[in-house]
């Protein structure tokens, strides 16, 4: 170009000082790519872990893979579409009914959480799914996760100074409590994730941190008391955790540990896990990380955790650079959601904490979970899309 228009050669230095560069959007392509990579990796691992059972029970090695692929493609389309919408519409009252979309979502979640308690399909002793004819089962608690992120971020960003006092925090809690309480009835682990999101959003917003440590203490006490004085079902999990090799309920965890410990540094190679061959029940679900360890070894496990840390770092960058507090807190909520799930999942698989059913984000099998996560990633990408800078 400079050869064709030599007359402009002297100008750039002046230009950069005087004339502002083109306004650009900071759409986070690295986050998009990371998400895409994790989803694809998840599909590979789901195929690896589920094909044996898929052949055995459905006569088709790709049975689980194909179902998950549909959700993955759908979820990624949703993610990209959502990322192009300005997240601020969520808090703008809708034109005709004059209600904010976030409020609509809140009410919808409340209704679905109540409905699931009555018409929910009971799978393994818990009513967590609503059967939608033709599509499959849908887990309202996944929608609730999105709702909690958006709602808490909205409440906190509306009056951030209120959160400097404990009363302000309680105010936020009271508003989100109905959702969490409805979830806790059937699904303690998801409720813990939800509480974690609320807590971290409030913590980040507040200038004063003292009372949060009190809350952490109370929270730990509450969780502990649920475990210690809760029903026999939870007591048993503690026993199984402490005596994983002998307790009959420790079977699944023990099989996971067998898988992890037989991986070694480099693993047995992709597809070569033996533990997935019927030893770990539903190894494509929550226990998928143990098979990753077995097949890809310590190196694979480190790589996956580093990818997640990288993903969290990108969300951090979005949160820090967000154009407003609301966008920032949405990114914080998504970050927390993924971080808590990864940590709990890995901790459970390695028997570092008592067993509880939390899937590994993007990788574990599960349609509603994946779509909800990708929806959240879409919003976070949407926040990055609103960051403007000059070249």
């Amino acid at each position: 170009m400079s050869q064709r228009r030599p007359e402009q050669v002297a100008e750039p230095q002046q230009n950069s000082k005087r004339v502002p560069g083109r306004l650009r959007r900071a759409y986070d392509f690295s986050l998009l790519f990371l998400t895409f990579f994790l989803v694809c990796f998840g599909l590979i691992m789901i195929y690896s872990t589920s094909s044996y059972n898929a052949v055995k029970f459905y006569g088709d090695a790709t049975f689980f893979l194909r179902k998950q692929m549909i959700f993955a493609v759908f979820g990624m389309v949703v993610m990209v579409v959502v990322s192009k919408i300005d997240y601020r519409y969520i808090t703008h009252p809708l034109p005709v009914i004059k209600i904010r979309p976030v409020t609509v979502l809140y009410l919808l979640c409340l209704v679905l959480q109540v409905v699931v308690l009555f018409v929910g399909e009971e799978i393994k002793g818990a009513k967590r799914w609503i059967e939608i004819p033709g599509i499959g089962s849908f887990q309202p608690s996944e929608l609730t996760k999105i709702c909690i992120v958006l709602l808490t971020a909205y409440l906190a960003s509306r009056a951030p100074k209120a959160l400097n006092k404990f009363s302000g925090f309680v105010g936020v809690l009271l508003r989100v409590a109905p959702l969490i309480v409805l979830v806790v009835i059937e699904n303690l682990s998801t409720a813990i994730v939800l509480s974690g999101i609320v807590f971290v959003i409030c913590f980040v917003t507040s200038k004063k941190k003292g009372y949060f440590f009190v809350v952490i203490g109370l929270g730990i006490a509450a969780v502990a008391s649920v475990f210690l004085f809760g029903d026999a079902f939870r007591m048993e999990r503690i026993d199984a955790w402490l005596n994983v090799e002998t307790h009959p309920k420790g079977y699944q965890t023990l099989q996971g540990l067998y898988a992890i410990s037989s991986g070694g540094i480099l693993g047995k190679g992709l597809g070569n896990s033996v533990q997935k061959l019927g030893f770990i029940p539903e190894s494509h679900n929550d226990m998928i990380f143990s098979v990753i360890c077995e097949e890809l070894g310590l190196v694979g496990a480190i790589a996956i955790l580093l990818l997640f840390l990288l993903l969290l770092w990108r969300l951090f960058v979005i949160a820090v650079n967000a154009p407003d507090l609301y966008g920032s807190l949405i990114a914080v909520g998504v970050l927390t959601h993924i971080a808590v799930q990864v940590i709990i999942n890995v901790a459970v698989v390695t028997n570092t904490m008592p067993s509880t059913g939390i899937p590994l984000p993007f990788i574990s099998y599960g349609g509603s979970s994946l779509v909800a996560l990708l929806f959240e990633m879409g919003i976070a990408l949407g926040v990055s899309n609103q960051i403007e800078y000059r070249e």
Partner: protein
Amino acid sequence: MQLVRTFQKRNLLLVLFVVTTVALLLLVRIWYLMVPGAGRLASAAKDLHERERVIKAERGKIYDRNGVILADNTPVCTISVIHNQIKDAERVIDVLCKELALEEAYVRKRVEKYSSIETIKTNVDKETADAIRAYELDGVMVDEDYKRFYPYNSLASKVLGFTGSDNQGILGLEVKYDFWLKGENGKILTMATAHGVEIPDMAETRVSPVAGNSLKTSLDVVIQSYAEQIANKVLETKSAKNVSILVMNPNNGEMYALANVPEYDLNRPYELTEVYTAGLSESELTAAKKTELLNQMWRNSCISDTYEPGSAFKIITATAALEHGKLSTSDHFYCPGYKIVADRRIRCHKTQGHGSQTFAQAVMNSCNPAFMEIGGRTGIENIYETFRNLGLFQKTGIDLPGEASSIMHKKENVKEVELATISFGQSFQITPLQLMSAVSTVVNGGTRVTPHFATEIVNNAGVTIKTIEGTGETDVVSQKTTEIMRTVLEQVVSEGTGHNAYVEGFSIGGKTATSEKLPRRSGKYIASFIGFAPADNPEVIAMVIIDEPQGLYYGGTIAAPVMAELFEVVLPYLGIEQTTIEEPDDK
């Protein structure tokens, strides 16, 4: 519009820091599980995945002294089923029932049993196994295996013993040397899924089996089969219950033969021989009865049963007296046909008495009063000391299982009468082998010997890894006593009660014995003869024991001729040189 404040960014940084820290701690936990802590869990996982299929080791062979195989192996197969790999259960059941001639219910139960691997039949011959293999049925495993095979069937059955279905030794040398013979089973470890289906293309771990060591024995097939042949002849002609012939090297305890007829077929050890089933109807042969009879059939009476040795024991009494200086060859004895001991009158077998006799004549006559006198002179202290020196208070230590101990009076309970009866071999019990071992020591110059069959254990490469010796303590009997006893016992054969054992051209020493079985007056006797040759330097010692002969029952009449028959063949066979033909004319 609220902007993001710096403190909020700092708060978030703190959150991210905590998350990263926790994630790193979890990585440490994963590293711990996968690298240093993996050992136990990973091996537990391996155990869970691996299914073991045993490859049987070939059992070591047993050879006689000239390298003739006495116990061999023949290839057979084991048929088993793996439940989860069976695709067409009905066909599997059909084929197995037909080929193996088994009951359908039996096969069905095993095929339908939910287990990792179920054995249907062992020791299936190779042809049948190949036929089954040809069906190529999924889930049916045909594994190569070995079965013990005894080429001479019943030869030395009481010595060799036999093996069980897992090729483990059950009786005889097979069990005594099981540790050396059995070898080490190998295994094929295959990986299997949780549902028990073998994973194809997974590396199999194969641990090769190590064949067992071979056993070289001192047994001689020629002597053994000849001994069995003449023992069977006597068994038949005398309608005896049991006839034993033992042949041993008196200098080192190597056993040339141990015939204990009736013998049984080692290739069919669980089938009763006719002798035992005769006169029994099908209904009388209950399982318990069969077990009892089998145990009788397998019993080696030479080592497992004790008897009163009778007159042959006078060798020991004389040795004790000579060793303790209570007897000299010039001593004279008078036999009126009985001897009064304490308040009893104990008769001689010759009721009219032997009259005056030298020591040598007393032995030749097998005179009881003379030996009561010798025993009385020697005293129980001295006699028991000699017994101990000759090993009569302990087992001989022969390398066969089931050896019985002697039954002796307690020394403090031995009064005059007991001492008198012990002197001519009554009122206590020993095994025939104990007597033979003790007499060996007397005539070999005073060396204790442990009778044994095994001489060498040879590994697969043909290298001897263990040699078995039979000699023990030396000089337990003086050379002088040995010389006297050899001379006196030679005279027993050349001119005394043992003359029926005389074989022309050989100098043979020996002693007859006739023992009345308990309870007395039941008319049941054991006739025996112990003999050795050449008398002046024994190279072979043998014993003939006829249990419950009908008709004549004197050892000198019925056992001594058997000894002659044995020595006629065995002495030349062993290369023992004929001595002067004119020797009998000397006397």
